[in-house]
């Protein structure tokens, strides 16, 4: 039998843990080498909360920005080798009943999809993003990769949008995913 105070502690902790689980995060990070290049792949999990989904379906474009930074570990500070910003946008055309996705990396691309689930897969799966040529990496050295995703609400034609922007909190920023590897 748990004491009442402990029960209260767990009951208070439970929603927090649930919130932590539902928060957007970076996962399935994988580094691959192909044709003398270092590539990175990862997924954004929980990247579209229900409110954001509603926002997209109401016609407001939403931007997902992924920041990838590769650093070489130093004694005092780390040297930045590469910094990439990927921007992916999604919008929904209520008339056509289709989702339009825009990719800017590695080249600009527009994709239209019927289903949101497919759109999510397109948006949140970052595959084989070229980081640096292997010759830039030194054998036996330690490197860190920081990945961070954030989401911003785009402009909308809604009246009072400027005013609402002050009071609404659409958009998020994931925790920075950081890992080290030795080449």
């Amino acid at each position, binding site marked *: 039998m748990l004491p009442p105070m402990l029960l209260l502690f767990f009951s208070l902790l439970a929603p927090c843990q649930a919130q932590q689980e539902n928060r957007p995060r970076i996962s399935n990070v994988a580094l691959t080498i192909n044709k003398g290049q270092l590539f990175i792949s990862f997924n954004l999990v929980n990247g579209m909360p229900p409110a954001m989904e509603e926002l997209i*379906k109401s016609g407001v474009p939403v931007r997902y920005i992924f920041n990838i930074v590769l650093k070489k570990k130093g004694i005092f500070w780390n040297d930045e080798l590469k910094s990439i910003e990927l921007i992916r946008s999604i919008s929904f055309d*209520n008339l*056509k009943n289709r989702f339009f996705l825009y990719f800017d990396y590695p080249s600009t691309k527009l994709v239209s999809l019927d289903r949101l689930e497919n759109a999510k897969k397109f948006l949140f799966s970052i595959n084989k993003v070229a980081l640096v040529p292997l010759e830039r990496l030194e054998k036996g050295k330690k490197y860190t990769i920081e990945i961070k995703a*954030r989401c911003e609400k785009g402009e*909308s034609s*809604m*009246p009072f949008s*400027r*005013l609402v*922007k002050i009071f609404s909190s659409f958009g998020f920023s994931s925790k920075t995913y950081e890992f080290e590897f030795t080449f």
Partner: protein
Amino acid sequence: MSLNSLFKKKRNRERVLAGIIALLLLVFAIIEYKLVAFIRPLPRYSNVLIFAVININLLLILVLSFLVIRNLVKLLFEERSHLLGAKLKTKLTIAFVIVSLLPTILLFFISFQFLQTSLAYWFDIKIERSLEQAISIGRIFYKDQINQLSSIEELISRQIATRCNTNPTDFLDEKCINDLFSPAAIGDPATACIRKIPINYLCIFDPFGNLVWQKTWLPITEDIHPLDKRFLKELSTKKQRVVTSINVAAGSLIMVAKQIQTQESGNIGYIVIGRVLGQDIMTQLEAVKQGFEEYKQLRLFQTPLKTSLLSTLFLITLLIIFVSIWFALKLSKSITEPVMMLADATHRIAQGDLNFRLETKGEDELSGLVRAFNTMTRDLKEARRKAEEASRRLLKSYSELEHRKAYIEMLLENVTAGVISLDPKGKITTINKSACQILEKEASDLIGKDYKELIHGDDFSELERMPRELVGSGRKSIKKSFRINVAGISKSLIISFSLLKDKNGRISGVLIVFDDLTELEKIQRLAAWREVARRIAHEIKNPLTPIQLSAQRLKRKFGNKFHDKEKEIFKRCTDTIINQTDELKKLVNEFSRFARMPAPALKRQDIKPILREIEEIYRPLINVSTEISKDFPKIMVDSEQIKRVFINIIDNSISAGKASNVLIRCYKDYDTDEAVVEIADNGKGISRTDIQKVFDPYFSRKKGGTGLGLAIVKSIIDAHEASIEIKLNKPSGVIFYIRFSIESINQPSSILSNDQEDNTYS
């Protein structure tokens, strides 16, 4: 520092502060607006900036509210401390605040309700349903268009696959496609069917993505860029129909793309078919879409929108309230401050500061009042200047009058004549010192009393007649001599009655001027007696010696010639003649001494030896004792004459008063600054009526007295410029007081000539 300048400084400070706050509010509001409106896309840190700006705005509103509340609290304290103008200010502020607050609060609640109602209307289920239905219609229309295009695409694909896929090497026969859409093939039912279908764009690619055939129909006028290979590649992977659209001048070109497949060859190419949806339809569809999307967004942002709108409304209301309170305070201050300034100025003017001026710039009524006040102050200053000038003149005149009055009073006080003024009713209005001395009365006892109070008894009947005589005679003044009795002493007065008339000739009173002639009469009488004595002495003295000698000769020659009884008679007669002649000689000698009183040879000397000599003279007869105080000064006397004074007085005490003891006291009277010699006896004294006559010549109550002893004393004392008076002693006897002025003892009198002084001290 004046209250006016203090007010001005404070007001300026508050104005500057309020101005800065208003400016900052404006600046930060603009920054906020710019941040929200124009910075796109908003960077992450901009949220912090926006909130910082909002917070600054809130802080500024708080500062503004602090200022307003501070002013209100200050007003409350002013009201409690009963500061001048505070009540009026409070009333005005309350009135203005109520006037502005009521509609503002009312408007706030109405707006609040209106907002709530509006939002409720916005998100009404009917509206939502209508919008959903509208978008559904749009979607259906759009889908229908797609479906139509898909059907056509199916039809054309089938035709191309069956007719134009003849050559296995060339996947599509271009000529066949041309024929399919050429007018020559009008008889062909399939072609006719195709041509009936309203399409505006048709494009056919080979399986490798190369353009084989393309055609546009009106309203498309521009060249349509064919779909790129990558898109077609996606088509090959999907094997499904792909719908896309592009904007053209006539509207929106909806395109449906799909592979052209045959069972035998598989993919033989791609077909893209398009139809233009007119601008008007697209606009309406877009409007429906936008309306729906905005509605959905509004619904999504319902809570923040409501919060933001209400917050804005609340802040604006708060701002209006603060501004209205501020305005009310300022307005009430602008009204009460001039009033307070006026009150302060009035107070200062009441205290006599007429140089004080109020400053005003406005053109309103209060400014007019202030200007009028300044004019009044200036006039007051001018009037005061004139009044002060007049006052100075009056003071000068008054001073002159006072001086004159004092001079006249001094004259009246120092004049030896008695001066009394009466009003028309006979009441005494003024009386001088000499009059009081002559009448032996106090001025305070007489002022305001009837003039009957001046003289009592029978003497007044004569005095009473004088005013009547004066009025009856028609003269300005009349003069008469009277003898009146004052405190038992008869005084001889010459009284003058004069009518006092004003400029108009009306009688405003009577002026009585009188002189005491008693002493003058005495002097005159003394002089007359001296003359008489001199003549008697001269006339009698001469025959006395022959008479005496003759009588002695008769006695010597014929005394022995008579016998017995005749001899006795003859001897007694001749002795009588001789004795009486001696007496007459003595009398004549007294007369002669009285008449020929020599001028005293004054010498400063001690009185002690003189008194010792007197004591020795009278030791066998009576007891004469002396007391001389240590501070008794040496006095200027003629020792022989002073001895005569003592002898005559003591002789008089012995012969007239039958005194057995005489005490001579010498002391200094510090009150009058005189050297006093008292000669007191214990004799029978003298009656009150006779006491004033004792110094008169030939007044004597003793048998055989010449009445010249005390007259000679008086003459000697007068010659010494001293004074003598006689008072009754208690229980019996009399006291003579001889007073020598110490001033005259120490210094020679200024009225004495140098010769006299020389004579005196030689």
